[in-house]
C-alpha cells in the first residue's frame, strides 16, 4: 500500500483531471455555504448539535442500553459486535439460513470498514451495492472515494465505459440521465428479487428505539421494504437521545453534505413490517478506545456529511483513494489512526492544518487540532515517516545551537540551491523566494 503522499503524486500527475476534481468538490462546498447562510440560526444549530453529541458521548452506555431495550420492545433484534470480524460473523449468521445467495445493500461506510462484501463473497454470498455511485465503483472493483459521493473521482466517460462492460449500455454513451436509467432498471430487478437487505444507519434514537436512514435515491427503502430480512449496521456513536433531536441533525446533515434542504428520503424505522425480520448490529471496532481518550473522543460526534472533505485543499487535490481508508478526508485522517496507528500513520500529515474542516463541521469537531495531536502521538510512538523524523531531529539540533544556526543561515543564503535536494520535499512544485543577502541580525547590527 502506498502512502498518501505517494498515491497523491499519481493522482495529480493528470493536472487537468486534478483541477476538475478540485473544482467539482469546491462547487459542492459552495452549495453548502449557500444552504447554510439561508438560516440565520445556522451557528446556533451547530452549537446545539455539538452539545447534544457531547452529552450523548458522556452517557453513551446508558443511551445504548435504553436504545436496545426500546428496539427490542419494538420487535427489532439487537446484536453487539466488538470488532469487524464479529460484525461480519453476526451478519452472516442472520442470512446463512436464507436460500437466496444475493443480497442488496445501501450505503454503509461501516460495512466498508468491516470489509463485509469481501467476507460474504468468500462465503458464497454476493452483495449488490444499490447506491448508484457505489454500484459504479463496485463494478470497477474500486472502493468509494468519498463517503457521500462515492464515484466523485470518475468522469461520465468512465461510467459510460463501466456500464458498457457490465450492463451492456451502448459503447460511448456517457449521458448521465441514460446511464442512471440503465442502473435503475438493473437494480430494480435486484430489489424485487432480494430476500435480504442491508442498510446503514444515520441516527438511532434512544428514546424510541427507532433508527433513521437518509438517501436521495430511495435505494435503502427499496431494499429494506421488499426484503424479508432487514439488517441495519451501525457504529455505537450513531445514538442520539431524543426524537426531537432529529430536527437539528436533519436540518444540518443534507445542508452540510450537498447543500440540499433535506435528503429526499429520511426514513424512520420503528418496527419491522408485518412478517419481516429486522436486525440491528451495534459495532465497537475501536470506538470505545477513541471514547476513552479525551483528545480524540469528540471525533465520534461525526455525522458523516463529508463537508470537511469538500472544503479540504488536500482532499480536493489528492482524491479519496489516496487516503487508503473507507472514510477519507480530514475526518478519516483522525479516525483511521485509532483503528490502526501504524498503517495510517501517514494520514494526519495529509493536511495543511488550515482549519477549514473544523469551520464547516456541523457538529463542531476540532478536526484540525486532532490532526495535530495525532502528529505528535505518531512522532512520539516512532511511527512518523523516517524523513520527517530525521528532518525534525536535525532541525531541533540546529535550533538548539545558535552558532551552527547562524553559520548554516549564512551558508544557505549564499547557496540556497543546496536546499533544493531530494531530501527536501518542500521544494517540489514550489517556487521559492530569493534569499536575502544578510540575516536580520546582521542588518540590525548595522543600524
Amino acid at each position, binding site marked *: 500500500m502506498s502512502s498518501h503522499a505517494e498515491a497523491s503524486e499519481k493522482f495529480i500527475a493528470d493536472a487537468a483531471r486534478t483541477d476538475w476534481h478540485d473544482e467539482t468538490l469546491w462547487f459542492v462546498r459552495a452549495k453548502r455555504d449557500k444552504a447554510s447562510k439561508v438560516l440565520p440560526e445556522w451557528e446556533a*444549530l451547530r452549537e446545539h448539535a455539538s452539545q447534544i453529541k457531547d452529552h450523548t458521548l458522556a452517557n453513551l452506555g446508558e443511551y445504548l*442500553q435504553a436504545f436496545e431495550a426500546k428496539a427490542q420492545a419494538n420487535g427489532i433484534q439487537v446484536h453487539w459486535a466488538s470488532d469487524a470480524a464479529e460484525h461480519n460473523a453476526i451478519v452472516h449468521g442472520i442470512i446463512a439460513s436464507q436460500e437466496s445467495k444475493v443480497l442488496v445493500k445501501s450505503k454503509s461506510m461501516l460495512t466498508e470498514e468491516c470489509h463485509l462484501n469481501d467476507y460474504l463473497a468468500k462465503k458464497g454470498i454476493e452483495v449488490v451495492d444499490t*447506491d448508484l455511485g457505489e454500484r459504479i465503483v463496485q463494478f470497477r472493483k474500486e472502493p468509494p472515494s468519498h463517503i457521500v459521493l462515492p464515484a466523485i473521482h470518475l468522469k461520465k466517460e468512465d461510467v459510460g465505459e463501466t456500464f458498457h462492460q457490465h450492463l451492456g449500455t451502448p459503447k460511448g454513451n456517457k449521458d448521465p440521465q441514460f446511464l442512471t436509467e440503465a442502473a435503475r432498471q438493473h*437494480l430494480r430487478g435486484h430489489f424485487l428479487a432480494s430476500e435480504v437487505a442491508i442498510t446503514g444507519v444515520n441516527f438511532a434514537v434512544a428514546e424510541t428505539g427507532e433508527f433513521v436512514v437518509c438517501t436521495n435515491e430511495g435505494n435503502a427503502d427499496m431494499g429494506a*421494504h421488499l426484503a424479508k430480512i432487514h439488517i441495519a449496521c451501525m457504529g455505537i456513536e450513531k445514538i442520539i437521545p431524543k426524537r*426531537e433531536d432529529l*430536527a*437539528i441533525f436533519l436540518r444540518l446533515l443534507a445542508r452540510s453534505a450537498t447543500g440540499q434542504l433535506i435528503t429526499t428520503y429520511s426514513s424512520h424505522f420503528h418496527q419491522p413490517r408485518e412478517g419481516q425480520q429486522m436486525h440491528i448490529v451495534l459495532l465497537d471496532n475501536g470506538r470505545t478506545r477513541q471514547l476513552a481518550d479525551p483528545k480524540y473522543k469528540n471525533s465520534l460526534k461525526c455525522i458523516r456529511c463529508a463537508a470537511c472533505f469538500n472544503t479540504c485543499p488536500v482532499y480536493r487535490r489528492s482524491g479519496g483513494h489516496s487516503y487508503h481508508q473507507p472514510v477519507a478526508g480530514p475526518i478519516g485522517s483522525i479516525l483511521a489512526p485509532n483503528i490502526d496507528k501504524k498503517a495510517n500513520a501517514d494520514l494526519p500529515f495529509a493536511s495543511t492544518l488550515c482549519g477549514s474542516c473544523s469551520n464547516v463541521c456541523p457538529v463542531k469537531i476540532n478536526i484540525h487540532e486532532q490532526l495535530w495531536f495525532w502528529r505528535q502521538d505518531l512522532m512520539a510512538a516512532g511511527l512518523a515517516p523516517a524523513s520527517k523524523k530525521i528532518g525534525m531531529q536535525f532541525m531541533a539540533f540546529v535550533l538548539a545551537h545558535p552558532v551552527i544556526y547562524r553559520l548554516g543561515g549564512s551558508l544557505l543564503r549564499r547557496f540556497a540551491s543546496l536546499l533544493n535536494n531530494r531530501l527536501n520535499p518542500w521544494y517540489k512544485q514550489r517556487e521559492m523566494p530569493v534569499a536575502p543577502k544578510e540575516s536580520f541580525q546582521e542588518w540590525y547590527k548595522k543600524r
Partner: protein
Amino acid sequence: MVQKTMSARNQILAKMESCEDVKHPGAFLGASEDFDFRASLEVVGARVLTVEELEIEFPGRRRYDKTMDGLSLAEVEVLEIDGEFGVAENGAIWLTEEALPHRVAPFICQHLVINVSKILPHMHAAYAALNKPNGSFGLFLAGPSKTADIEQSLVIGAHGARSLTVVIRT
C-alpha cells in the same frame, strides 16, 4: 454465538461506565419561521398542482388501496396518497405507514401524488407534532428520487418515484 455476542455487549458497556456530567441542551429555540412551502417544493423538484389540474394531468391515477401488495405496486404508474403534513423550510412531507398501502409504495410507483392540508414551518415544529405514540414506520419525503452520482449531474428518478406532485388542499 449468543454467548459471544453477550460478551461483546458487556465488554462495550463496561468501557463506558465513567459518566461525566454534560447536560443535554434541551429543545432548540429561536428557529426562524419565515419559510415558503411552495418555494421549498420547487427547490426539491416537486410540482404543485390544483385539484382541477390534477384531474386533467393524471385521470388514471390509483388511490391508496390496502389490497395492493409490495410487488404489484411495481406496476402502478401514478399513485395518490395522503401526507400528514408538509414542512415549509425544506418541502418535506411526513408520511406514515398507516396512510400507505405498503411501506414501499412511495418508492416503487413510477409517479407519486401526495395530498397535504397542514403545513408546519420547520423540522422542530414537525417533530413536536410527531410527539405522540409512534407509528411503526414513517418518513419525510422531499421531492422525487434523485442522484448526482455521475459527475454531479442532477438526474431525477434514480430508484424511487420519477416525479412528485403535491396537491395542497385547504
